[in-house]
């Protein structure tokens, strides 16, 4: 059991480019034994996936291993010919990729794909392979495996698909399993099941598992040992408990500290340091009324979507995405809207700000009246100035063909919020306010990182001097350390500018940090809506409890936070 199954020594991977080679991995050492799960954690660009690819021999073009050794049971994989390495894949090394939807061939049934792999890799006749396929599907937890074998990938849910992927990866009975972000694309409740499955097959078959992820919670709950990576270099390694509770490197400490805790609302978010910029005066202008009534109220709100079920007469059938009797948000409060995918939270958020028409019910703004009656152009423009959005995907949120200063100037000009000559100054001040250098305006979106792009989106939202901000998963696509900065920025802006926020997210920990009240959604309905502290400490609803229980947590990092604030 203490045999080393796979080992890399001083591994170097480079991507040659005419303007200068890019080294993705600098001299990396790693060991994996049978029966253990080794975690590779790092933020984007850390090189963790590259290592998995290098071991498999499937580096994306033009990457190549430029130094070091990769040993599998003592044999240096880099000495093998392409054909010999190909023979090892599936038989000795299995892989799982991130997105189960795209990992499976959409035109072949699940059973066919699995039976084919078994037949080819284990050299068995097809009939026998089919029986084995049914058994294995059952073993990974697909109910009614014999019949579901004949279904196609699109007929399975995300979690089920990933189980199929796991069965496929194990079809050749490999000794080493490389799992590249296996649960990132899945809901939290399903995530736990898939991780448990990986854990159980690891123990059953004495597999060595390399688990690549950016999520510390996943590592904490599943990995025995962990390697922390940054920019292609190893930062720290050791048993999981030790690295998480007593990290020895500053980067690891910072990384753990920036993970929002689901256990408590952290000081840095609850009481953000109030900042002022010169732009604040401009941003606060024109907002005199500070009445204490609710800012926005929704009643009897429903939204139905047509299901694309093709019958002879066109599409028929509908499904109800949202059905809530009432929801209100007080002025200046942050309401967190939390739920899994398909819960309707995004749809509800968009309805609240008038981007999606409800099928029935009404929404009433105390400053503008009922949404349904905001019809004249002037009234609509006024509404649009007050109510803004920050989206999830920093890449599609910005028009890649427009310069940043034009992106910010456009709303200012359209709403007549500044004199022509003033606008460049306003744009520069806005950029500075969100933490970007003033010359950022002259660049294009693709020249910025994800976190910076999100800041530009926030600046754009602020450019019309809003009172209300819908944040639709604004940090879900960002690295953990950037996430913390973004939350801090949002909270600080809220404090300084007195904004009202509707914060939609699937991440309970993040929601806990920012919300005054929280509403939990399940399949279009609000199952619980209370103030944040009580909801998280003593949840009343079973579903809420289930969500809290299954969320992976890097336990014990409360101490790590204390460590940080002490430094």
């Amino acid at each position, binding site marked *: 059991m203490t045999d080393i199954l796979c080992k890399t020594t001083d591994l170097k991977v480079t991507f040659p480019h*005419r*303007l200068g080679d890019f080294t993705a991995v600098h001299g990396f050492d790693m060991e994996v034994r049978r029966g253990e799960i080794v975690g590779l954690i790092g933020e984007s660009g850390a090189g963790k996936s590259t290592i998995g690819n290098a071991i498999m021999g499937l580096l994306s073009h033009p990457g190549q291993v430029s130094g070091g050794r990769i040993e599998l049971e003592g044999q240096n994989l880099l000495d093998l010919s392409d054909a010999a390495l190909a023979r090892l894949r599936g038989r000795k090394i299995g892989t799982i990729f991130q997105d189960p939807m795209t990992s499976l061939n959409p035109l072949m049934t699940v059973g066919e794909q699995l039976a084919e792999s078994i037949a080819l890799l284990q050299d068995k006749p097809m009939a026998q392979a089919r029986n084995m396929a049914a058994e294995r599907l059952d073993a990974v937890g697909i109910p009614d495996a014999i019949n579901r074998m004949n279904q196609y990938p699109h007929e399975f849910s995300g979690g089920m698909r990933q189980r199929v992927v796991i069965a496929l990866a194990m079809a050749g009975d490999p000794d080493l399993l490389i799992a590249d972000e296996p649960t990132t694309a899945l809901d939290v409740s399903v995530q736990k099941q898939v991780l448990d499955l990986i854990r159980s097959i690891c123990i059953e078959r004495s597999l060595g598992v390399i688990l690549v992820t950016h999520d510390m919670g996943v590592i904490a709950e599943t990995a025995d040992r962990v390697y922390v990576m940054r920019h292609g270099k190893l930062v720290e390694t050791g048993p999981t408990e030790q690295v998480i509770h007593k990290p020895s490197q500053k980067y690891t400490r910072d990384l753990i500290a920036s993970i929002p805790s689901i256990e408590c609302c952290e000081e840095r978010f609850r009481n953000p340091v109030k900042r002022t910029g010169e732009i604040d005066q401009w941003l606060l202008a024109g907002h005199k009324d500070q009445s204490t009534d609710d800012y926005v109220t929704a009643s009897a709100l429903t939204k139905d979507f047509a299901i694309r079920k093709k019958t002879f007469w066109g599409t028929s059938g509908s499904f109800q995405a949202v059905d809530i009797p009432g929801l209100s948000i007080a002025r200046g409060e942050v309401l967190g809207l939390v739920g899994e995918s398909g819960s309707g939270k995004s749809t509800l958020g968009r309805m609240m*700000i008038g*981007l999606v028409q409800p099928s029935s019910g009404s929404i009433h703004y105390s400053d503008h009246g009922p949404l349904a009656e905001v019809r004249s152009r002037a009234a*609509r*423009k006024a*509404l*649009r*100035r007050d*109510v*803004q*959005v920050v*989206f*999830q*995907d920093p890449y*599609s*949120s*910005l*028009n*890649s*063909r*427009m310069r940043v200063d034009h992106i910010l100037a*456009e*709303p200012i000009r*359209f*709403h007549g919020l500044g004199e022509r000559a003033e606008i460049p100054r306003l744009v520069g001040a806005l950029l500075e306010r969100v933490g970007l250098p003033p010359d950022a305006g002259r660049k294009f979106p693709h020249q910025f990182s994800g976190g910076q792009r999100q800041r530009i*989106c926030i600046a*754009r939202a602020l450019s*019309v001097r809003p009172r209300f901000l819908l944040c639709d998963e604004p940090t879900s696509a960002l690295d953990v350390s950037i996430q913390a900065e973004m939350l801090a920025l949002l909270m600080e802006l809220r404090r300084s500018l007195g904004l009202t926020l509707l914060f939609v997210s699937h991440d309970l920990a993040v929601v806990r940090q920012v919300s005054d009240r929280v509403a939990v959604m399940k399949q279009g309905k609000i199952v619980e809506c209370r103030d944040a502290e009580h909801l998280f400490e003593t949840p009343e609803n079973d579903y809420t409890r289930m969500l809290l229980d299954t969320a992976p947590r890097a336990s014990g990092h409360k101490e790590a936070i204390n460590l940080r604030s002490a430094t």
Partner: protein
Amino acid sequence: MLERIRSDFWYELLNSPVTLASAIVIALMVIGCSFAPVFAPHTPFDPATISILDNNLPPAWADGGDPRFLFGTDLQGRDVLSAMLYGGRISLLVGIGAVALSVVIGMTVGLLAGYFGGMTDAVLMRIAEIQFAFPPILIALLFNGILKASLPADIFAQAAVPIMILAIGLAGWVQFARIVRASAMVQRNQDYVTACHAMGLPTLTIILRHITPNIVGPVLVLAMLQIAVAIVTEATLSFLGLGTPLTEPSLGALIQIGSQYLFSGIWWVVIFPGAMLLVMVVAFNLVADWVRDYLNPRLR
């Protein structure tokens, strides 16, 4: 040395000699043909300068050739080289003009259908589908043919070029509408468009200022491919006698003239205009292919 060029565009272009050559060829042809009166050694359409005594002369380097006529002369004593330059001008004019028309119609239809969806989309796409049932060359044939039969001969001769531009342009918009619609639908679902809605920006602004710049790539590639197709279509129409009159022939008509006398051994009236036509079309296709590969991020 090539490696140190900063810009990806110029590096890729200079690294592909075939594409570079094609681009240069296109540039040369455009310049040469546009300024045909300047470059052509003779004026093949001015009856005063043609002498029937000069007819059927082979190229200058062959036996019996005349150095005044580099590529020989045709039946009526017209200089093949000059006729090629003037004919090439017509080819390029029709090719680019027709595609410009197709782009304008196609983009308008595609943007409306893609952005608004619903009824607008259904109606516009049905119309497109019905027209798509007929191959463009057939449409151009019929359009031209019917007009030729309906108009007096001299008016048709004068208006031949605009009529062909109209015919080929109207026949070719459907492909543009489809790709623009597909791209527009993708863009419409992007968050930045939703952000524009949240800003309250008017629809026209969103379509013109935001969506259009993002769909230009595929349109550009298709446009170049279609220019190649339009040039061939024009040549075909002229070959069939439905295009430019024989007194001011385009490359297709020249080839038609030449084809009648193949068996008499007069090959130069077909080969040289044919070669020019082929080179022109191949050049556009090669450049279009390169631009398509360049704009496709995943192939790099």
